């Protein structure tokens, strides 16, 4: 699994170790003004190096003194005096160590939209005052951190440490990177510049906000040994099936004393056993569409998919059911079905690495073998129905005898804008003569696909949170309770 944070840090380390011939120019020109999205150009030097101002002071002092001698102009010495004096005063004692930078966070794990606490400390280990220390923190684009993106400038007295609070929040789920942080110091009145002090990145895990989800306890085929759903088999459970005469092996606490006294014969309460069910959540990651705006803002397909998956998983896992995950896309990860609180945390962690399939990558052919999705499992497919392959997959699953529910994860606002057409003159739907017409044609084709899927027995419902699946769950359960004709 590709860890973007580690890859980013490796790239930084590679640049750090690269030798450099024009260190001062790099540090002064490129480092402070580089946009935040680009990886930093970090160059490390052996020690403090003179700046261009140092060269200017030496050059002008020499020129003015030579001119004073050759032109017999003592007033030129006056011009050279402050340049030479300033340089001499500044360079009287010179620093040797680079500034030490450290970024720490007390909240490496946060929820989407919640506050993030971090701090940056810069230390001056020299006995010389740093006239200026410029530190720049780079973060993932989904972390809104104070002082990130802009360099932070301060002065540090000798032997002291400056701490900067980096308050912020994670605006989207996923694995994010806080850092690396690069700082350089300037001393001797701007004549010397230090090597870059680099603080490594910190990993921040932002768990998705769980979409509110509730559903009734209807399940097409409950299969396990214990759980919340009633089965059709007699056994220990909470659902009463009837009253029958006592038989050897029955528990005494099951005796129905009222019926026993009336019939003068021991009777026990018969119950139906409780069973758990298996839910397979299949996430269609072939395409991403829409813009992410964080919690409460605009949603992309992946946002809806991940939040809905987390909500459905939380609902069923807390009821004792087993929930598994499969990605439809590349690389096609899967998470085995299991139950319990620990499994729910595993699901959240697993969802952090959800990414859309790269262009040109096809889903692996082994993803949907016969043994991967059990025939008695409820398969919930989260799909935006953008790609024809998604519709074909749904039809294939239904034809294979699986209990399939498709949840439409296309953002409603995106569908609405496609249906309305361009509203402003700079709207992309207004660009080109046939763009809006093509968009409407695509919408009609999509509606046609949804209708065809319903004809194949695949209910397609838009994601609506609590109670939105009750009706289709009832339909699927009714279908499951009847006889089925499975092609051989």
């Amino acid at each position, binding site marked *: 699994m590709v860890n973007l944070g580690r890859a980013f840090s490796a790239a930084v380390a590679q640049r750090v170790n690269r030798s450099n011939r024009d260190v001062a120019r790099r540090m*002064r020109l490129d480092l402070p003004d580089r946009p935040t999205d680009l990886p930093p150009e970090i160059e490390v030097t052996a020690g403090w190096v003179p700046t261009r101002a140092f060269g200017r002071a030496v050059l002008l002092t020499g020129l003015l003194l030579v001119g004073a001698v050759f032109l017999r102009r003592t007033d030129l010495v006056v*011009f050279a005096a402050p340049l030479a004096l300033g340089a001499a005063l500044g360079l009287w004692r010179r620093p040797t160590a680079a500034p030490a930078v450290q970024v720490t966070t007390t909240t490496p794990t946060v929820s989407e939209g919640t506050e993030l606490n971090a701090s940056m400390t810069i230390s001056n280990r020299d006995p010389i005052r740093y006239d200026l220390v410029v530190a720049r923190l780079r973060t993932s684009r989904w972390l809104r951190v104070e002082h990130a993106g802009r360099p932070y400038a301060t002065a540090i007295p000798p032997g002291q440490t400056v701490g900067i609070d980096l308050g912020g929040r994670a605006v989207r789920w996923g694995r994010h990177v806080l850092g690396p942080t690069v700082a350089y110091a300037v001393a001797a009145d701007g004549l010397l510049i230090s090597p870059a002090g680099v603080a490594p990145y910190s990993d921040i895990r932002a768990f998705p906000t769980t979409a509110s989800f509730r559903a009734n306890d209807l399940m097409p085929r409950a299969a396990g040994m214990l759980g919340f759903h009633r089965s059709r088999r007699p056994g220990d459970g909470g659902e009463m099936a009837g009253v029958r005469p006592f038989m050897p092996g029955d528990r005494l606490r099951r005796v129905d004393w009222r019926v026993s006294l009336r019939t003068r014969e021991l009777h026990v309460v018969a119950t139906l056993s409780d069973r758990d069910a298996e839910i397979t959540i299949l996430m269609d990651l072939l395409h991403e569409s829409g813009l992410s705006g964080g919690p409460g803002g605009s949603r992309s397909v992946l946002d809806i998919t991940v939040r809905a998956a987390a909500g459905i998983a939380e609902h069923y896992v807390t009821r004792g059911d087993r929930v598994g995950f499969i990605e439809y896309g590349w690389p096609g990860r899967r998470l085995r079905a299991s139950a319990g609180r620990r499994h729910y945390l595993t699901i959240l962690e697993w969802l952090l690495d959800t990414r859309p399939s790269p262009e040109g990558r096809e889903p692996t052919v082994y993803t949907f073998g016969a043994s991967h999705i059990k025939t008695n499992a409820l398969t919930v497919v989260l799909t935006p129905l953008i790609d024809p392959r998604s519709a074909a997959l749904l039809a294939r699953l239904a034809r294979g005898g699986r209990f399939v529910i498709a949840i439409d994860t296309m953002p409603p606002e995106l569908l609405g804008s496609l249906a309305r057409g361009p509203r402003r003159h700079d709207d992309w739907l207004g660009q080109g003569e046939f763009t809006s017409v093509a968009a409407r044609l695509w919408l009609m084709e999509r509606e046609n696909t949804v209708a065809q899927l319903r004809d194949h027995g695949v209910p397609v419902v838009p994601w609506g949170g609590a109670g939105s699946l009750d009706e289709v769950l009832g339909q699927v359960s009714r279908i499951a309770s009847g006889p089925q004709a499975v092609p051989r």
Partner: protein
Amino acid sequence: MSELAPIGGEPGQVGRLARLGLSGRGRYLMRRARYVLGRAGALLQRGVGIRIDRVTAVVEQATLGPVVVRFCSVLAALGGFAVTWPTRDLTTTSLVVPVLFAVGVGIAPRSLMPTATIVAIVLGYMFNLDTGAPLTVWRPIAAASMIYIVHTSAAFAAVLPFNAVATRGLFLPYVLRIAAVIAITAILAVGILAVPGIVGQHRLVSAAVAGMVAMVGVAGYVAYLGSQRR
């Protein structure tokens, strides 16, 4: 994409060019020139657009501290020109030159502009004296002060990003150091320029040589420190 039209041109243009009396070769060159000019114009337009976007971004992100430092360097450069350059040049159209130098220092403190500006101030001072301006004590002191402020402000601005968030009190030691250096310079200048006139003409050469030796010593020390790179 009209400026990137094919060499053959639009239908109907051939007829217009033919009516001008151009030969086939002339018509071809005419169309070729139109194509090249159109392409160059498109590239120029794109380049200008990119630069305008860049300037807009810089203006939007600029913060107060770095802007003040750069503004100080601009003001000091203008002050240096005002003190040293002949007054008649500063009231005519040649005023554009000092303004360009000064603005250049503020915009590009990392470039050669500060050095060029200081050299221009010194050359203007020497030209002014050669054309009859009196040699007074205050003028070199003021000019040296302005030169030093230009130099040190540019040095500070070169390492302070334009969008940096500066803490309070960051610039106080910098201002105090400038004041101290200017005070020492003023004392030194009085010693160099005024004392020889007071003590008599016969001491002028020896005093100047002594002062020069001292300055050469300081310059040599600075050069030595610069060579001690780790």
